[in-house]
């Protein structure tokens, strides 16, 4: 497939998007490179944890200009209350990312709010809110082993991959947190989700420190700390459900920046007429790392088991890849591999040319408040042409019962996004606007039946199409922002949507538990805050 053929119509299919892998463009990787290269300094300012593993901590990262602090609260949670769902009301640990260094009064105030999570009211000095639960499979066993002066086996750690997992990481003004618009111009926070990634990075450090403290509490002088080489293999888990899926539909201009930057980097890489030794070496090293780490990608779900098996076959097959040039290798992968392998080779190519990739990585943000308004001066003909150009895939469907089998809605309890079978549950009156394909097709029909002189006049008569009209105009300028698949189909696998976003975060070891929620791992193999430097901030994961 030449670069000219890498169009949204080919690439923006859910099966393909659900095969994306993390790369150096991922937000976690961008954060660590910045922290390492700018020599951010870590400081544990407070670690007041008692013999039960309960208490509070403040972990601070100092940039050359500012400081950011994770304020952490460790709780004593009964096992029967532990749940990953939004409807949970208590957690093993709760956190917020504070803008600066909190005073004792700040910590006391946050202690009244942060443990309540969704009931919290926070202020512009708090950037993120999060919580985490222990891995029941792993935590107690590792604490006991360390308390006896022994190290756990790598295999036992790899079975789970994390000691604690977050079940939400909130930012962007939720619960009174700081609006992104107030901090987006800071260089260190301009790339997407940097505050959230920093929060998780520091949570990982806290979890390690808490583990070692609990082991010492249990074993006294006999206890040992988790060996650094074992600790580094562990990430922070995350349990992600449908809550993340609407984001992909609701922010097409941002998604376009992510995927457009990736495609821009690939196009520039493919301009190289051959593989120079150093880029080739980097690509193959990335491939080797992927193969070495693959056994740690464990899942019991049949869907994922098959995908991992396919990826293994593809990674083996990549030993025969055409390495005459980046373009040739990409075409070879497109012709011979599954989506999993094609996407993994793209990760290798991005790794091979860091200067190109990192420059494109600087273009992944957008100010969504700009160019928000509808341009009603379009003619209806112009509007229909635009629909045809960007939503032809939606116009080709009948939108019958099977095509509209599902309905997205939000539950009253804890405001949890859900997906229902339209014919089985009476939730259609509460349908959320997450079916752009169907809505665009209906918009086109209405336009064809109208004699309005322009789009503004049409929308004055048909305000029910405003939301869709706005989306159309956005997608015209942001073609990689639209998923070219039916988001309410009976065949929809929401985990494909989740994996797309999570891969851009940098998460890996996707472990679906059903077709609509999964566990992943973040920062596995990354250096900890205590050891981060310019020499180890990349080449991990």
């Amino acid at each position, binding site marked *: 497939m030449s670069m000219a053929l890498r169009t949204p119509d080919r690439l923006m299919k859910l099966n393909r998007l659900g095969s994306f892998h993390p790369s150096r463009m991922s937000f976690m990787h961008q954060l660590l490179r910045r922290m390492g290269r700018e020599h951010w300094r870590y400081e544990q300012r407070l670690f007041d944890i008692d013999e039960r593993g309960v208490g509070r901590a403040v972990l601070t990262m100092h940039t050359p200009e500012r400081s950011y602090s994770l304020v952490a609260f460790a709780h004593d949670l009964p096992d029967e209350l532990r749940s990953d769902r939004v409807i949970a009301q208590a957690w093993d640990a709760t956190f917020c990312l504070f803008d600066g260094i909190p005073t004792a009064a700040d910590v006391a105030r946050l202690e009244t709010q942060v443990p309540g999570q969704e009931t919290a009211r926070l202020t512009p000095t708090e950037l993120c809110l999060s919580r985490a639960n222990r891995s029941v499979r792993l935590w107690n066993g590792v604490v006991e082993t360390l308390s006896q002066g022994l190290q756990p086996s790598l295999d036992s750690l790899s079975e789970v991959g994390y000691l604690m997992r977050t079940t939400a990481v909130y930012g962007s003004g939720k619960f009174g947190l700081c609006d992104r618009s107030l901090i987006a111009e800071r260089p260190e926070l301009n790339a997407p989700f940097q505050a959230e990634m920093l929060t998780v990075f520091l949570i990982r450090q806290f979890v390690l420190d808490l583990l070692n403290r609990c082991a010492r509490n249990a074993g006294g002088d006999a206890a040992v700390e988790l060996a650094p080489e074992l600790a580094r293999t562990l990430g922070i888990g995350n349990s992600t459900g449908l809550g993340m899926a609407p984001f992909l539909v609701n922010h097409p201009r941002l998604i376009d920046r992510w995927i457009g930057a990736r495609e821009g980097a690939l196009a520039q890489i493919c301009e190289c007429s051959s593989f120079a030794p150093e880029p080739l070496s980097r690509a193959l090293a990335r491939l080797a790392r992927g193969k070495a780490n693959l056994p740690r990608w464990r899942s019991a779900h049949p869907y994922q088991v098959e995908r991992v098996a396919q990826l293994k076959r593809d990674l083996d097959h990549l030993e025969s890849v055409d390495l005459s040039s980046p373009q040739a290798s990409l075409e070879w992968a497109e012709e011979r591999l599954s989506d999993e392998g094609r996407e993994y080779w793209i990760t290798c190519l991005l790794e091979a040319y860091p200067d190109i990739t990192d420059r494109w990585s600087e273009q992944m943000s957008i100010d969504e408040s700009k160019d928000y308004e509808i341009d009603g001066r379009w003619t209806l003909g112009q509007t229909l042409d635009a629909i045809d150009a960007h939503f032809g895939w939606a116009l080709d469907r009948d939108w019958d019962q099977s095509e509209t089998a599902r309905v997205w809605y939000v539950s009253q309890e804890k405001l949890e996004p*859900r997906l229902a079978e339209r014919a089985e*549950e009476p939730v259609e009156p509460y349908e959320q606007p997450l079916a752009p394909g169907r809505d665009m097709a209906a918009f086109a029909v209405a336009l064809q039946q109208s004699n309005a002189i322009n789009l503004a006049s049409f929308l*004055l008569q048909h305000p029910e199409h405003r939301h869709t009209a706005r989306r159309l105009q956005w997608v015209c300028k942001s073609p990689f922002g639209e998923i070219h698949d039916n988001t309410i189909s009976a065949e929809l696998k929401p985990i494909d949507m989740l994996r797309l976003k999570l891969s851009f975060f940098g998460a890996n070891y996707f472990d679906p538990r059903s077709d609509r929620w999964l566990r992943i791992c973040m920062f596995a193999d990354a250096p900890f805050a205590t050891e981060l430097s310019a020499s180890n901030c990349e080449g991990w994961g």
Partner: protein
Amino acid sequence: MKVSFNELEARLKKAAKGAGLPWGLGEEFAKSLVWLAQRNVRLDAWVADFLKDQKCSDQLAGWAYELDLRAVASEPQEPSVGEYWVWLGFQGRLAKIQNAELDFETIRVSPVSLELFGHSEAEYYTQSAEPILRADVSSALWNELEIFEYKTYAPESEASRLKGAGAGVTDND
């Protein structure tokens, strides 16, 4: 009470839908009020009163029409407090798009500011030299908007809780 602009926009959009408006008009309503809040206009009962007014859908559609055409919408005659402010929010957004100042009889809006000259609605507005970091919303309004917002959410059921979100009986790891 103080809320973030993101929270405000999300609640206004959903409240408008809960009040019976289509999503697209709710978006225009929300954006216009956020523009006002970012300039230190205090949101109070007049917001909910506007939503409950039978004319609000036609008014929003009309002001949105003018904004779509990048035209100034005529100042409403003998407006309610809500009509006045929401109309003004639309004009503020137009000023921002055009990067221009718009002058009305007793108001001037620019891309970043708002000036009221002896206007009776000034009780809801305090000019500030400091950056506005939060929206100022009365607690009563916030609660009333939440009631509208909840009309967009499906009532809970055990089956929905288990099936719709996809997690099994045991979520614990």
